[in-house]
């Protein structure tokens, strides 16, 4: 039954994917200025230009161009980057692992911190630990990751230089890796010193990314925990003689997670989008950072490629969230 749900969910996402592709297609083509003219140098002859037009299919009608566009995406042909002169897809895949490691680290961090904050807030309700946690969460909620990133740079760049504030790893160590998944690879191969260095570079950007989401999770989970606490099964659980801590963890939390996951899930995708800014500020070499260069240089194929990859990740992420919701809520599994 869960498989059927997953398949159904993927099928539902189809039109959205198509819509996203259409959106990118339209967006790129409304750009003022002739894309071909931007790609060629001064000595190009009219024949060269005509050839380029043919290569890029610009002589077809718009609907046909769209179909060609779809076919290209499906086969992984995203064209060649104008500024970096390499295949767009391979460029993206080279940098994607860095962004994924960052995003996943930030998500885990926010889940753990958010959960802890919410539990502290409920268990010590009315006493000072809860007040402290509530204050931090309230502050974190209003501040966007852009500002957190800058604050962290200011703090760790000037005031307390304990952690590195740029890059992913010291340049001389890049050759040590076979894959682009630096953290995963170094841990799996047992090179913990190296892993430590990657982690040190990862901490600040992940923290900047995670803080707003931590605040959301903490607030939502706390509210759903308090709501669940009014339910009768909690009374019965306490009537069985269990301590408040046990009731909180075994009875309240599983129920409170359900609405919390739905709402937090919506924000996970925002975290993924936040990588664009955080990578820029921390000079972290992921695909978000690459977008900046592409934008400045009006490198349309690259812009297009990065946008589509992000859209696919977003849609995929939404599917994952829906499925995890079905997993934890027994009532949804049947339906």
């Amino acid at each position, binding site marked *: 039954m869960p498989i059927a749900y997953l398949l159904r969910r993927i099928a539902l996402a189809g039109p959205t994917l198509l819509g996203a592709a259409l959106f990118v297609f339209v967006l790129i083509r409304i750009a003022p200025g002739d894309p071909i003219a931007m790609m060629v140098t001064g000595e190009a002859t009219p024949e060269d230009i005509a050839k380029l037009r043919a290569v890029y299919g610009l002589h077809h009608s718009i609907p046909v161009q769209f179909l060609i566009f779809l076919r290209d995406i499906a086969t992984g042909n995203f064209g060649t980057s104008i500024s970096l002169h390499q295949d767009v897809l391979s460029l993206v895949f080279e940098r994607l692992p860095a962004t994924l490691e960052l995003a996943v680290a930030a998500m885990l961090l926010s889940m753990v911190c958010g959960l802890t904050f919410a539990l502290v807030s409920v268990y010590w309700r009315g006493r000072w630990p809860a007040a402290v946690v509530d204050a931090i969460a309230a502050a974190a909620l209003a501040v966007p990751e852009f500002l957190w990133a800058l604050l962290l740079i200011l703090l760790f760049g000037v005031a307390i230089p304990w952690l590195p504030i740029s890059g992913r790893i010291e340049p001389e160590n890049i050759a040590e890796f076979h894959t682009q998944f630096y953290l995963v690879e170094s841990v799996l191969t047992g090179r913990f010193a190296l892993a430590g260095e990657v982690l040190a570079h990862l901490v600040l950007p992940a923290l900047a990314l995670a803080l707003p989401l931590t605040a959301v999770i903490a607030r939502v989970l706390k509210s759903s925990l308090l709501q669940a606490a009014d*339910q*009768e*099964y909690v*009374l*019965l*659980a*306490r*009537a*069985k*003689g*269990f*301590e408040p801590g046990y009731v909180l963890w*075994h*009875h309240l939390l*599983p*129920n409170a997670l*359900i609405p919390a996951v739905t709402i937090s899930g919506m924000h996970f995708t925002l975290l993924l989008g936040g990588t664009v800014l955080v990578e820029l500020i921390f000079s972290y070499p992921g695909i978000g950072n690459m977008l900046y260069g592409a934008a400045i240089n009006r490198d349309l194929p690259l812009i297009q490629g990065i946008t589509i990859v992000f859209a696919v990740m977003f849609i995929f992420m939404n599917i994952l969230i829906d499925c995890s919701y079905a997993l*934890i*809520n*027994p*009532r949804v599994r049947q339906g």
Partner: protein
Amino acid sequence: MSPPLLEISNLRLEIRSPARISPILRGINLSLLRGQIRGLVGESGGGKTMVGKAIMGLLPANAKITAGSIRFDDQELIGMPDSMHRRLLGRRISMILQQPSSALNPVLRIETQMVDVLRRHMGLGRAVSRRRALELLDAVQIRAPDKVLRQFPHELSGGMCQRVVIAIAFALEPSLIIADEPTTALDVTIQFQILKLIRDLQRKTGVGVLFITHDLGVVAKLCDEVSVIFGGRILEEGSAEAVFASPSHPYTSALIAASPRHDQPERGLHPIPPELIARLWEETAFSDREYADA
């Protein structure tokens, strides 16, 4: 004669909100002997649920006991440290609640919710507790207990849920069970079955039951003794037979008269007279003043 299983003396309780303090219980006196079923009957808002929660020590945060004592098996419950109190709950005192479908945790399987009490208080292993759970489900007349254990609460009917709750209540062979309107949320036909179940189990195990309800018919059928509560005070008490045959307090008579009699359709409906209620509230206020001055 052995001391009563449960003895409540002059229990006073109030609810505190930022705006005001509302007295809920104004000196409750109640006792329950071993093996007895006592009904605590009164209309909604009379404070009867609070009595049950006070015994369990599960009062809401804004409720405060201001006077009186609750003695269970000659131990004073008020002021008992939480850890000691928790040892009693589930093991010596247990509870049956009103809404069977919401009394069970929706995300946990039935087996988990039945077995946790057994393992917590008796330290039984998984296999042993599972067998005991099956026995218990059998005792509450659930067919196919094996299947039920694996299910979730929303897959069971209201009646079946209540049977599970009853099974949990009887699981550790307690001395006292507090039943708070256990049949109110069920269909009339199921009500009868559940009541019969409770009575049969009570006869078999000799447990003391405090049966809280607003339904006089239930009290008449099930209880040995009855206490009538109104406005936070006990107005009348005695054996069920005696109280119903010849009630001494006008409120009790009015309550009995107000019950619809399906066997006497020509009788019509007799609501409780408002003058009586008004007089009773006056008396309540008067007794409050006396208490405050004392």
